[in-house]
């Protein structure tokens, strides 16, 4: 207690220098919490949106289907061996995928045709719009919905018509006109860019892949069933990919971004710690006489080192308190309103909303507190070790104090 009190009083005695260090460290502390919160929030939002718009809680795909290789699509379709009650339970949403070309405004655009049940409710895609075309148009063209990104890149608007060309199951080219029934906004670029969603049955007829499917999006209830635990034969030897695996890509991207942001955080922290280190070095140089006095009064060297180490570490504790005073209202405000993201930010490669809502978990805050305290303790201890080599008689001859 004596060492702590003495350290605290010494620190307060340093006046402005202490508060300058504390302020810089508090900025570093709040910024680290903010960055981590932003990334965690982004990660959470990306996962939630991806589940809602694209993956559901699992995917049952044709054994030949590779989402990263469009050449597999020609063969990656079939009639799955899923039990009828599973299909009827609306927990397995069939999607058929085919390669195609579109000719919007006279340009050639390679697209992915995706067939989806207009009545589905498993994904957030507004597939009901596919049934919204007025009679007359519905009979002559294929209704399609596209995302905002696709609409912008192809120069299409709701109500526009464009020709698409595809190959059926026998490899024969065919072409028809589609009408854009609606343009949806989504944070998930992978259901938007280069994709055209049409009714599932229409695509099946167009391609001759009657009753066939490329993959199923699995709902939450079915994802938790024991069906996936046993032999693959239970679900027609297709490949079941659980949610954790589907989310790996998102997590990898977020982790990569976290690395970049950690560098910025580390730089900020280093600046703050450098200030503490400098203060400690200066303090030990200037306060030699005081150190000598402590020794003369009967303090052991170890205890004097402890006083100076605690003195430096209290910077961190004060910074956390100060950071809490101005950081909590600021971070709470940002959590309420979210961080606006620029238009181009969805090119980051994963779902990102117009605003990212930061998520501050207790674990993240506590680990940041621990990081700041431990690093401060280390940089405070390093210069304080010099005291161990100091002779009391030399220290008492110090010039100042």
């Amino acid at each position, binding site marked *: 207690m*004596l060492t702590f009190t*003495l350290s605290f*009083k*010494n620190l*307060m*005695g340093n006046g402005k220098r202490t508060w300058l260090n504390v302020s810089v460290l508090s900025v570093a502390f709040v910024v680290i919490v903010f960055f981590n919160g932003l990334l965690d929030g982004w990660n959470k939002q990306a996962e939630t949106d991806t589940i809602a718009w694209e993956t559901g809680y699992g995917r049952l795909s044709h054994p030949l289907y590779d989402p990263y290789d469009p050449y597999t699509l020609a063969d990656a379709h079939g009639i799955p061996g899923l039990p009828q009650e599973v299909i009827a339970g609306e927990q397995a949403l069939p999607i058929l995928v085919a390669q195609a070309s579109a000719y919007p405004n006279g340009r050639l655009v390679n697209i992915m045709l995706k067939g989806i049940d207009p009545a589905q409710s498993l994904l957030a895609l507004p597939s009901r719009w596919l049934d919204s075309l007025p009679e007359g148009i519905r009979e002559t063209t294929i209704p399609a919905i596209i995302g905002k990104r696709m609409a912008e890149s192809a120069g299409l608007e709701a109500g526009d018509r464009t020709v698409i060309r595809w190959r059926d199951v026998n490899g024969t080219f065919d072409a028809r006109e589609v009408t854009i029934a609606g343009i949806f906004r989504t944070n998930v670029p992978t259901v938007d860019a280069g994709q055209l969603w049409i009714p599932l049955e229409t695509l099946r007829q167009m391609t001759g892949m009657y009753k066939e499917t490329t993959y199923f999006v699995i709902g939450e209830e079915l994802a938790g069933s024991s069906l996936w635990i046993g032999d693959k034969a239970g679900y027609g030897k297709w490949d079941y990919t659980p949610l954790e695996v589907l989310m790996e890509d998102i997590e990898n991207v977020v982790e990569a971004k976290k690395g970049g942001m950690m560098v910025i955080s580390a730089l900020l922290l280093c600046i703050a710690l450098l200030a503490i280190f400098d203060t400690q070095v200066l303090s030990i140089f200037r306060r030699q*006489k*005081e150190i*000598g*006095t402590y*020794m*003369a*009064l*009967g*303090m*052991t*060297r170890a205890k004097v080192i402890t006083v100076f180490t605690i003195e430096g570490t209290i910077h961190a504790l004060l910074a956390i308190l100060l950071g809490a005073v101005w950081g909590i209202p600021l971070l709470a405000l940002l959590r309420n309103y979210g961080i606006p993201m620029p238009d181009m930010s969805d090119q980051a490669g994963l779902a990102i909303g117009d605003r990212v809502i930061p998520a501050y978990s207790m674990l993240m805050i506590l680990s940041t507190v621990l990081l700041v305290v431990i690093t401060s303790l280390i940089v405070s201890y390093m210069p304080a070790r010099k005291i161990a080599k100091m*002779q*009391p*008689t030399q220290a*008492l001859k110090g010039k100042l*104090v």
Partner: protein
Amino acid sequence: MTDNEIVTLRDLYKRFSAGKGLLTALRDINLTFGKGEFSGIVGPSGSGKTTLLNIIGSLDTPTEGTATVLGKQTGDLSQKEAAALRNHGIGFIFQTYNLLPVYSIYENVEFALLLQKTPARERKERVMESLQWVGLADRAQSRPATLSGGECQRVAIARSIVKRPALILADEPSANLDSVNTHHILKTMKQLNRELGTTFLFSTHDEKVMQHLDRIIYLKDGSVEKDELC
């Protein structure tokens, strides 16, 4: 060493390295200081007064010979044991007072007792008693920066006496004081010496201090030149 002896120095040498050679700061010192003495080591600058006081105060160790202080050979003590000896047995009064600037007068005096882990109630009594001895009880909550040099030195005396040490070492205590303050602090120290039986050992070259001493040891070039009772 008899029970009455507080400090015994035998064949004591202290050498420092100076450039390529060695500088002998103290040579063949043989001295004994008894309980309740009010003695001074006198000599010009560089004669070895402070070095001798540092060795007695276990802040330094002899190169040769032995220094036995309160029954302990300072040269054989570990850092921790030397710190304990200083904490419990020896009080220091420095030329520049060496008060802790961030502490109040009360806290400065209390500091040594905190190191000894003295209970709070006893601590308070002893601190106030010490401050009353030096006439600064009413300034207990002041900061050292607000005191005059004489008052600071009186706080240093209170700080050294509060733990009731057997020995107080005062290194040039009057160097920064005028004659009135010098007289005042020496009167206080003499009174404490008489009332508590504390041994005082000064290093000084101040005539005003010498007038109050009972025994003066003259040092010249690190050797005892004269040892006389006054």
